[in-house]
């Protein structure tokens, strides 16, 4: 698990390229097969995870929460928000768009909105992000994504209240109820 506190990071990957990569790397049978092989290997998995961390840390200030929100936040990491907010900005954003905790830095959600809106993806910010699973810190989010374990990270968008959605991170409770 990372020990670095959350600090807003400005992404170093352009929005257009980010969305192009998103399309190219969408889960497909080939990637599913490959990611399963990497995950099963005691050598490849840590190597892959380290490479992912290094890449995403350089580009997005990644702290390895293991459940990546970047595809729907304009590729600005919400885990860099000092309050780790996954559903949008707090009420303390400065009039100039600065973070209230680090006034010299921009609020990640102000930047997320600008970047998503610039590519017609502002509606992404209406998705309801469910609570994260803290057991996944340090894991590869890419492997989780290709393996389909990220499907419960957010609901279906505006108007979807999540009322009938699955209970996240449900674990079998001994003895049933």
């Amino acid at each position, binding site marked *: 698990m990372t020990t670095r506190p959350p600090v807003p990071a400005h992404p170093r990957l352009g929005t257009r390229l980010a969305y192009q990569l998103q399309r190219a790397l969408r889960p497909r049978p080939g990637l599913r097969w490959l990611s399963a092989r990497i995950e099963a290997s005691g050598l490849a998995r840590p190597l892959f995870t380290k490479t992912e961390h290094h890449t995403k840390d350089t580009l997005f200030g990644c702290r390895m929460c293991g459940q990546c929100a970047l595809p729907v936040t304009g590729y600005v990491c919400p885990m860099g928000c*000092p*309050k*780790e*907010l*996954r*559903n*949008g*900005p*707090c*009420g*303390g*954003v*400065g*009039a*100039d*768009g600065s973070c*209230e*905790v680090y006034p010299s830095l921009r*609020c990640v*959600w*102000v930047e997320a*909105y*600008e970047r998503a*809106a610039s590519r017609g993806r*502002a509606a992404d*910010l*209406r998705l*309801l*992000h*469910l*609570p994260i699973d*803290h057991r996944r810190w340090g894991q590869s989010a890419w492997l989780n994504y290709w393996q389909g374990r990220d499907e419960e990270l957010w*609901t279906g968008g*505006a*108007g*979807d*209240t*999540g*009322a009938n959605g699955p*209970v*996240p*991170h*449900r*674990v079998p*409770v001994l003895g049933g*109820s």
Partner: protein
Amino acid sequence: MSLRDRLTSGSFAVTAEISPPRGASTDPVMETAVLLRDWVDAVNVTDNQGSNVRLASWAGSLAALQAGLEPVMQMTCRDRNRIALQSDLLGASALGIRNVLVMTGDHPKFGDHPEAKPVFDLDSVQLLWTLRHMRDQGALLSGRPLKPPPDCFLGAVENPFAPPAEFRAERLGKKVDAGAQFVQTQFVFDVAAFQNWMVQVRDLGLHQKCYILAGVGAVRSRNALDFMRDKVPGVNVPDDVYRRLRAVPPDQTAAEGARLAAETIQQLRATDGVAGVHLLVAGNEQAVPGILDEAGITASRAEYGR
């Protein structure tokens, strides 16, 4: 009449705010509740406001209830993880505290224990979703059933004035989707900017799904005015308001502040989709009757809980 009934009936609601004391006594909360109970429908009890340690919000809420004033228990995400938050909702509901106001909470950096661990296990949208899930599905996040489930009326907060302006009504929409039944806003000093936000709110139809209570503050002194303008995150004091309050002699700032609050209430009351006002007057509760009287809202509040 409870806050929920007042809002459902369509009549204009008024809420205020109490900061519990830094000390092991609920007497100050009770005294303020007695002062306010004939004037407001319910009173927020803050949760370690500004990240400063105070008597617990649930204890202050219980004291207000015992003094005959319906509480709105504030619940922040700053200090408790999902285990403690769910547990506290059960406790509050069992004690008769029905209204819960969910917010992210200030960062510990701004309070009296800046070295504390910021928790933020859930964010405000997730906490609303969690509490609604507990009430409506009768289950914890883990899936374990609740016998009986809690009964609660869920509130949220929103700051119509903070960037990104285009997203602020949408953000309220997320909170409504997650379970918010009423919302209290940040201080409205800039009525025009608030009304712009209300246009977006009405376009999204949110005023029909969620009762909107606009925040109104009464400036007490020049120091308070400067503090509000320069030091409180997310508060926007426009220049004309600032000039108006600086134009009177210092000993009349409080009176002018109260007049401004009363005028603001009248303007907000005339705004389509506004269901009530929330008076942000913690520490200055004795000004409430005068402000409401001047705004034309008379003491007609039924007592609650006795």
